[in-house]
């Protein structure tokens, strides 16, 4: 990985992704969801919170594209706004764990010694608690809400990212270009930020892309059992929780939010797979 032709590297990766039909499809799909979420106020035909009892529990029709829920609120508008919450939670929690994980992992890997030992033992402990179980414990401590869900979901990821960052750092630590940087009197901080980090970026990026989808699913699960985002906030899991008593009679209330989650996660998985292959130097052709 030379940094001499900085641009050509990015172009190269983009080119390799574009050969992968699945990844292109996933990327476009995800971009579409992001755009829908951003422009939700312009697209949504109704106010997503407006209760309209005479029109309750309608199946999808021309007036209400995806039907209405048990309070007569338009499902299409709710789903659009729901995308905002789900994306915010997914991306927010991944960023949270990426930022802290990278800093902690970089420090552990670069300085080694007792710090490394301590960080790795802590990671062992955190990772020995199954994800959803730790999420529930944290949700219990933090209480429900969008922001607290982001924190609860982000916490565990710190351990995984820190571990990944540490091992990448250990890989590049012995490289000659670091000796060169050190002899030219770079500070530790500058070496990590300018020389080590760009070369350890790829695995973190792939892990994070895949992580967003997993977090969206976990967040929906937490909202469903009532410890994540609370109704009437139109987060997709909370929408499912909110209409759980009506699911049998009006299946569209159950199917629509779930399909939305599936589309976003599928898009991210496809794109993440493609990104992983594109960034893997072993697969270079």
């Amino acid at each position, binding site marked *: 990985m030379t940094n001499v032709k900085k641009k050509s590297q990015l172009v190269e990766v983009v080119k390799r992704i574009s050969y992968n039909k699945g990844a292109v499809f996933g990327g476009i799909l995800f971009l579409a969801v992001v755009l829908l979420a951003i422009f939700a106020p312009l697209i949504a035909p109704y106010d997503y919170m407006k209760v309209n009892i005479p029109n309750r529990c309608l199946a999808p029709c021309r007036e209400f594209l995806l039907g209405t829920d048990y309070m007569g609120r338009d499902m299409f508008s709710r789903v659009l706004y729901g995308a905002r919450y789900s994306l915010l939670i997914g991306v927010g929690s991944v960023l949270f764990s990426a930022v802290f994980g990278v800093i902690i992992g970089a420090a552990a890997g670069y300085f080694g010694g007792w710090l490394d030992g301590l960080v790795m*033992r*802590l990671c*062992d*402990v*955190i990772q*020995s*608690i*199954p*994800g*959803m*179980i*730790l*999420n*529930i*414990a*944290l*949700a*219990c*401590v933090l*209480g429900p809400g969008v922001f607290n869900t982001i924190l609860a979901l982000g916490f565990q990821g710190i351990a995984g990212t820190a571990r990944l960052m540490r091992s990448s750092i250990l890989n590049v630590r012995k490289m000659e270009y670091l000796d060169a940087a050190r002899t030219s009197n770079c500070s530790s901080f500058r070496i990590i930020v300018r020389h080590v980090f760009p070369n350890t970026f790829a695995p973190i990026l792939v892990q994070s892309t895949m992580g967003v*989808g997993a977090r969206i*699913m976990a967040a*929906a*699960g937490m909202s*469903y*059992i*009532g*410890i994540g985002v609370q109704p009437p906030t139109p987060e997709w*899991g909370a929408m*499912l929780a909110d209409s759980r008593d009506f*699911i*049998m009679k009006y*299946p569209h209330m*159950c*199917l629509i*939010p*779930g399909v939305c*989650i*599936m589309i976003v*996660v*599928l898009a991210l*998985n*496809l794109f993440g797979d493609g990104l992983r292959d594109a960034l893997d130097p072993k697969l270079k052709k």
Partner: protein
Amino acid sequence: MAKYIGKRILLMIPVIIGVVILVFTLMQLTPGDPAEVILGSRATDAQINALRAEMGLNDPYIVQLGRYMGDVFLRFDFGTSYISNVSISTELAQRFPKTLIFAVSGMVLSLLIGIPLGVNAAIHQNSLVDYGSMTLALIGTSLPGFWFSLVLILVFSGKLGWLPAYGIGGIKYWILPIVSTAFAGITTMARQMRSGMLEVIHSDYITMAKAKGVKKQSVIYRHALPNALIPVVTVASMSFGTALGGTLIAETIFAIPGVGVYIVNAVSNRDYPVVQGGVILLAVAFSFIMLLCDLLIAAIDPRVKAQITGGKKRSKKK
């Protein structure tokens, strides 16, 4: 080998102690006073203070931690529930078998279906079978498990009326919960198995086996499969953790009185000792599964085995 097993078990002890400390500390950070939770909002300050003293809540953090760890490790006592005043250990002992049966049978089912699917896809790489099963697996990994359970209920008990939607009872009651927990595992296993198998199929010793005229079936099942299975064992143990987490939600949906429902209800009732005990129990169970998996890998993978049993006969690594 015995030495390795001993060492691996010893290594688990600090992790379990760490888990107890971490969970205890987290629960200490929760807002609100346990004495107030127990006595309700109408209690007087004097009553609350008396109860705080009785429960030892006025002691410094480190003393409380020490006492809790003593109770947990020496007497397997997780305290009593704030709400029902029942011993948490008794309750967990009653509920844990259900959660375990649930998670383990889901795991077994996912291995039984996922492995053949993955092998089949790898053998017929780039065929219709391959694309079909991998597309299904990809969609499967993108489905939220709890939503899949809802859809199963909707179809099999709502529309078709074949199976009960929730509750416990005969074998009929177990089908939907187990299938829904197994589903995520099946797709993960199938994907992992396929990529593991593809990696092995292109290695030299497989070409060698084919060249010397070994039957195709035999090449696949005797030569390729054992090596391709090793990464699957690791993934399986990780996804057991996911399955345990998934059961927390699935138990709520299917109304199975296991540890998951206990914890989830405790969260909404602010019954912290229950959450604390339940989380510790499940984390320890997960650690044991990881231990079993490591030992299994050591037993089946000659490379790891050689490292453990000294590797004296071998020349220097690399």
